[in-house]
């Protein structure tokens, strides 16, 4: 994994921190450590970037809304079941796909990323408190955009 990706994942994991229980199954008495936060940070970042690439590719505005929420929920479910190695490889691939889309349609970056952030908050808010879901989603967007900017500059 590139150092930029790792840094983004760590920043999101740090934001999740003590709120990790908001994003883990109810009733599961299990006090999570840093590795779990890091894995979750990667999952949220992957879901965001995958949804970003898909939305930008399908022309923003046409496929946003409920479908995007469902798509992100599916992505999160799918990524969580992957091994750390699979997640690392997948994260690099999805970042690359999102970066290509961002380079091809830079005018859509702000609108699409805002819509994806909102959809991600909606997905996370199904389990988590809404203020926490909003805060984490904003962090994921911030880190994703930073990552895409770095890729564009490279």
């Amino acid at each position, binding site marked *: 994994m590139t150092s930029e990706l790792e840094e983004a994942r760590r920043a999101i994991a740090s934001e999740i921190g003590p709120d990790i229980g908001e994003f883990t199954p109810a009733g599961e008495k299990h006090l999570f*450590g840093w590795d779990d936060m890091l894995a979750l940070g990667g999952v949220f970042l992957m879901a965001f970037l995958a949804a970003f690439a898909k939305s930008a590719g399908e022309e923003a505005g046409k496929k946003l809304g409920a479908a995007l929420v469902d798509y992100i929920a599916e992505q999160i479910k799918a990524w969580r079941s992957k091994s750390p190695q699979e997640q690392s490889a997948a994260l690099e691939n999805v970042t690359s796909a999102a970066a290509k889309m961002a380079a091809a349609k830079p005018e859509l970056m702000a609108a699409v990323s805002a819509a994806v952030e909102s959809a991600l908050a909606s997905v996370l808010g199904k389990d988590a*408190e809404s203020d926490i879901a909003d805060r984490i989603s904003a962090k994921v967007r911030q880190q994703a955009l930073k990552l895409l900017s770095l890729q564009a500059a490279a």
Partner: protein
Amino acid sequence: MDALERKALAYAALQRLWVTLDPASAEIRWQQEFAFMNLPAELKAPGHWYQHQGDSGYIEYYPSGDAGEFHAELPAGIDAASIIIIPQVPGFPSIYEDMKGLLLDSAAVQGDVNVQRIIADMDELRSPTHASRIKSIIAADGFGALASGKQAIADDLAKKLQAFSTVELQRNKVTGFEAAAVMLLYSLYRQLVTATPAAPANLIPKMFDPSGVSSLQEMTARFIHDCCAAGMGNAASQAIDDIRLGGDATLAASRSMLPGNLDPGVYLDSYYAGLQQAALRFLAVRWGWQSVLVFAGLSDDDRQRAEKRVNAVEEKLVRCETALMYAVKDLDGSRYRQQQQAIRDARAAGDEEKADAVLSNVFDSVFFYPEALKDVMSKGA
């Protein structure tokens, strides 16, 4: 900082640990911690799995050490035969004894009468009659205020909360659990008096009914049940959520606290005091949702939500408690230096990932120190 000041900080760290939940809970954790520390060095390597003798659940030591991850069940792939059973160690001095020793050492400065008064308060706090006494005070004062109107009740609860969560807690006159219970009563009251539709007229007096319960916590739990049964479950949920928001804000403020011109020892003391305040709120939230869960009439959705909230706040509470325990272990700064050395060693071995993991564990997972020290520890100062 002179020896007396160091002893004062040591007393403060022990005292916070002793009262944040209640003395009995703290003493159990303290004994378990000592039992772990008493293991031979080769058995304390990170990555091992442990179980305390006679206890349930398993603890996986974090790769960077100094804290562990609790698992109710042993995960697949972990050999049960590899679990290290931590034996109980009889005869280890209690927190109470350590606090008493520090107090007696300070008698020349504090005055013998003052020291004896503090010790008497400590004895009362851990006595079997304490819980009932505090419950009776809150109930009697609350009933007294009922006749004077809504504002009088609100004022009385606010005053009690302010005292319980600060001065009374520091003076060993109440436990954190009792402060958390008053926090819940105050938040519930504020929601109930502004609720639409209005709460039934006979509900508020039930808040101060001491009959049939042995402690303030139980009186509060029963009242939360009464609120749910009276159709005021939404008000109860909002009251608990309000405390959770306060807890999150308190935790965030503590973690981002800057040292300014404070002596490092005083800075950390203030940081841990902030964590204690966050812990009180998380304790209230956990107790609040656990009390809601007792109500049999919850919908499936509401039950699921309450279970989720218990789980989420548990994660925060245990991190605060772990940090308060760590504060006692690191009074001389030796743990700080060990963490720093682990980072240096990892970097010297070219393992930047491990160095980052140590930093992240210490600051983001278990928050042993405020975030302002992250760069300082990382750069080796």
